[in-house]
Each structure stands twice: as structure tokens, then as C-alpha cells.
């Protein structure tokens, strides 16, 4: 009895992912338009970014440096591919590892900071990283890194590569969150003092979340570099980090699927209504307010909200019935 209930619950969890995956798989059948394929690649690239940002967020820290870690993966992979001629498999992994290692090293001094203070530290770190990239020669400085050898020449190959990459990355992060590691991180986020009292090293687990999340940030950055073949720091500044945070918060930061939904919707909406794309920031701000006031759990929290409403109605009906008797 309990088992079938669990199965039903699991099935219900998989359905939204299945729908989204199916949509992404069949997009090319509906539009051979290169522009639209590019938009969907752009969604997947950022989706891995915002989901990995949420992995870090599990430990209770909000990072404003995530866009910069994506940039580091992108630039490191780009330089390895362009100047040293490394094959894509190596550059992708190297980009991911580079972002992971640098995030842990730069995160180490700030690991004791919490909440707003961590946010401030990560903000400065993120901005500093972009300045360093701009100041260096190998990165092409402010002119950008051009002529990176691409991984696949066909847009379809690039597209399906991103679909596979996204599925693999999301599965890897899903496992992280729903294992004891994720439970420990969520415990730490709720009360660092209680977590320490049961033997959790706050520094270790915060760095673990940071390193793990940044690995996927670097990976998606590297993949996008090999697809787009040009990199410019203007695409990675603080604004980019804030967008990733927006996707996560509007989508719903308490659920794994939150940033997935958030990214799809907030990249697609301005694309669909090209004519009002200039208003995209205002629309996002409005959406932010709506979410903050009406659906605190984000878009992914709507089903829960409805369920709770229903239950409440039921309880009220019951108590009314009780009075009638």
C-alpha cells in the first residue's frame, strides 16, 4: 500500500521533467530555424547555470559570483582549445575543474561568512574575476576571445549535445541534492549552530556545495564557449549572475525543478514577444513582485499552494458540517 503510494508520488515527480525533455527533443522537428535552435541552446546553457547556483544555495549561501565562474570555465576551455589545440573532451572537463578549483580557493577565506555578508563577498569576488579576465592578454582582454575552434559544425549536433549535457548535469546534481549530502546541506542552511553540534563541519560542507556547483558552472560555460566560438566579458558580468538568481527565485528556490522552469520561461518570454523585449527587465521585476507576494514558493510551488487550498477548503467544509449536526 505504502509502496504503490511512493511509486505514484515518484511518477508525479518525473512527469514535468519528462514533458520538458520531450519538448526540447522535438523542438528541431518544428523549427529548422537556426535562430530558434540557438535560443533553446541558450536556455539549456543557462539552465545548468541556475540549477548549479541552487546547489550552492542549498547550503544557505546566495552567490553573486556564479556568472563569473561560468566565465572562467568558458575562457579556460576556450584558451585550451584555441591556443593549445586540446580536444573538446579535455577542454570541457578542464573548464569544469578549473571553475571548481578556483571557486574553492577563492571561497575559502569567506567560508565563515553567512547570509548578506557572504553575498557581498561573492559579489566583489565575481566582479574581480571579470576584471582579471579583461586585464589578461591570453583572454583577448576587452576585445574578447575570438575564433575558438567549435566542437560540432552542425547546429543540430550542437543542439543535441546540449540536450545530453543538460540531462547528465541535472541528473548529477539531482543525486547530490537527494542524497544524505543534500540533507546535510539543507540542515546547515536551516541552522548552522545545530548542524555543527551534530558533527557537521560548516566550512567543509559549504565548500563542497560551492565546488560541486561551480564544477557544473564551469562545464556549461566551457560547452557554450565551444559552441559559440566567441567570448566577451560583457556577457558574464554581475547582471548575468543576477539573472541566474532571478530564474532560481522566480522558478522556486525550494524545489529542484524551480530554476529549470524559471530559466525556460524567462528566456522564452522576451523571445516570443520580440516587440516588447525591451521591457523584459520590467516584466521580470513585475514577476518577481508577484511571486514574492502571491506565491512565496515560486512557480514550482504553485501545485503545493493549490493542494493546500483544497485541503483547507475540505477542513472548513468538514467543520461546517460538524456544526450543522
Amino acid at each position, binding site marked *: 500500500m505504502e509502496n504503490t503510494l511512493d511509486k505514484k508520488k515518484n511518477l508525479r515527480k518525473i512527469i514535468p521533467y519528462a514533458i520538458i525533455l520531450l519538448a526540447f527533443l522535438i523542438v528541431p522537428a518544428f523549427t529548422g530555424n537556426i535562430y530558434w535552435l540557438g535560443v533553446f541552446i541558450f536556455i539549456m546553457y543557462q539552465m545548468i547555470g541556475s540549477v548549479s547556483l541552487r546547489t550552492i544555495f542549498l547550503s544557505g549561501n546566495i552567490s553573486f559570483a556564479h556568472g563569473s565562474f561560468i566565465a572562467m570555465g568558458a575562457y579556460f576551455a576556450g584558451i585550451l582549445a584555441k591556443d593549445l589545440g586540446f580536444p573538446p573532451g579535455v577542454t570541457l572537463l578542464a573548464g569544469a575543474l578549473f571553475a571548481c578549483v578556483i571557486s574553492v580557493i577563492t571561497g575559502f577565506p569567506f567560508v565563515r561568512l553567512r547570509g548578506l555578508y557572504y553575498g557581498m563577498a561573492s559579489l566583489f569576488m565575481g566582479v574581480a574575476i571579470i576584471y582579471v579576465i579583461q586585464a589578461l592578454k591570453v583572454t583577448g582582454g576587452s576585445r574578447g576571445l575570438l575564433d575558438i575552434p567549435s566542437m560540432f559544425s552542425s547546429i543540430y549536433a550542437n543542439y543535441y549535445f546540449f540536450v545530453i549535457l543538460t540531462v547528465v548535469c541535472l541528473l548529477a546534481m539531482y543525486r547530490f541534492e537527494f542524497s*544524505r549530502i543534500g*540533507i*546535510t546541506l539543507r*540542515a546547515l542552511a*536551516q541552522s548552522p*549552530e*545545530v548542524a555543527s*553540534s551534530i558533527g*557537521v563541519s*560548516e566550512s567543509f560542507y559549504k565548500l563542497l556545495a560551492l565546488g560541486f556547483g561551480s564544477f557544473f558552472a564551469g562545464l556549461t560555460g566551457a560547452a557554450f564557449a565551444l559552441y559559440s566560438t566567441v567570448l566577451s566579458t560583457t556577457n558574464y558580468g554581475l547582471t548575468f549572475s543576477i539573472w541566474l538568481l532571478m530564474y532560481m527565485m522566480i522558478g522556486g528556490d525550494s524545489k529542484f525543478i524551480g530554476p529549470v522552469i524559471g530559466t525556460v520561461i524567462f528566456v522564452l518570454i522576451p523571445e516570443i514577444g520580440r516587440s516588447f523585449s525591451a521591457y523584459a527587465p520590467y516584466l521580470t521585476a513585475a514577476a518577481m513582485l508577484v511571486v514574492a507576494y502571491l506565491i512565496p514558493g515560486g512557480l514550482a510551488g504553485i501545485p503545493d499552494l493549490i493542494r493546500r487550498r483544497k485541503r483547507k477548503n475540505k477542513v472548513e467544509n468538514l467543520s461546517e458540517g460538524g456544526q450543522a449536526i
Partner: protein
Amino acid sequence: MKLLETSGLTKRFGGLTVIDNLDFGIEEGEVKGLIGPNGAGKSTFFNLVTGVLLPSAGKIKYDNRDITRSKPHQVAKMGIGRTFQMNPLFGDFTVLENVKAAFHLRPHSSLFDIYFNSKVYRDNEKQIAESAEEILAFLGLINVRNELAKNLSHGYQKILGVARALATRPKLLMLDEPLGGLNPEEIDFFIKAISNLRDQGITILIVEHNMQVLDILNSVSVISFGQKIFEGTPGDMRQNSTVAETYFGGVI
């Protein structure tokens, strides 16, 4: 043998000396009370021992090891479990999840085992689920095991704090005002549970204002303004005039 021993322990906050040259010890296997008026420094003492605060001077020895500068998670690993006076919880976890999460140290699964869902990890988690239920049953929380911790009554939350500390499999259990917020029935039940734990061989240190705990204490230390003013049995404490004056305003 002394399980925990402090010598010359001192803690100053700016100019305020909150723990003043305190020599304190607890024998292995006993239940000891630490009592004193509000602001005497009892919670500060807990925080010094468990590494939440660093002492200004003095030494802390536990189980023949110097833990003066140990961090909270290291102290927990060595076998000191504790609760907090303000009793923070993992509020968004259920009661059962709170206790299961607290099995962080023992049994141990490596990150690799956990991530790749190895047999070691699965076996450990099975064992944790059983042990967690046992603890909840022991402390009378089994019927609320699926409630969110933040929705519990004050009393149940206090007991959940103890359940969580027990999940670390402590040798020394330190309870900061565990009876606060409990109703009389819960207090009776809880006091029985404590003596039960002592029988299992756990050494227990209790900070408490409620004098009902005196019945189960082997010994008591009384502190005032961070200094020890009495040490002895609960019976002797009742007779002691200094304690009566500073703590109870002369009425016992």
C-alpha cells in the same frame, strides 16, 4: 575518572568577565547539575566546552584530550552531544528527518558511498532509520514523527532537541534547560528518560532552574557571576546558606 574537566576557565566579553577562573569536573557515568541565577554564565560555559566560543584563558580536557580550541563539529565527533537553551531546530524538516539528519557521524558513510548509493550507504541508512525510530519511541515522539518540527508544541520541540543530541551517540550529553516549556506530565516522563539514559552509561550535565531535577542528580555545581560557589550533593546544597542566599533569595 573525570570525563570532562576545566581548569582556570575564563571568558571575557569586552570588560565583562562571564566565566571567572572556573574549575569544573564531571565524573564518568554521573548526572550532574549546573545551576545558578540568570546571567551566571551557564550557557556560556556550554558554549566554551562545545567550541562555539573560544575561552579567554584556561583549559578544557575531555576524555584525556585537550579540547580547549576544538571546533563544535570536532567536539561532537569526540562524543559530546548537546541541546541549546533557545532550542533552534531544523524547522522545515519533520521530526523523523531531524533525528535522521543528526546521524551524521555514526554510522559513517563516505561522500563517495553516499553519492554513488553504495551498499555501505544503503545499509547505514537502513540502520539509521531504525535507530531514529527507536530514539523517537524512547522519548515519546513517535506519534508526531511526521510533523514538521516548527509546528510542534514548545515541549515537544524541547524533547526533539534531546532526541537529536542522542542521535550523535554521545558519551557526554549536555542539556541546557531541557525542562523549560514542558508541562508537568512531560517533566515526569522526561526525568524518567534521563535516569534511563544514565543507566545506559551516558554521562549527563544538566543546566536547569526547575528543582525537580535535583532528585536524579548525583552532584551539583552552583555558579554565580561565573564563579563556583558550591559543589557537592543535592542534599548538601539544600542546606547550604550561601547557595540559598544567592540563588533562592533565602527560601528553599
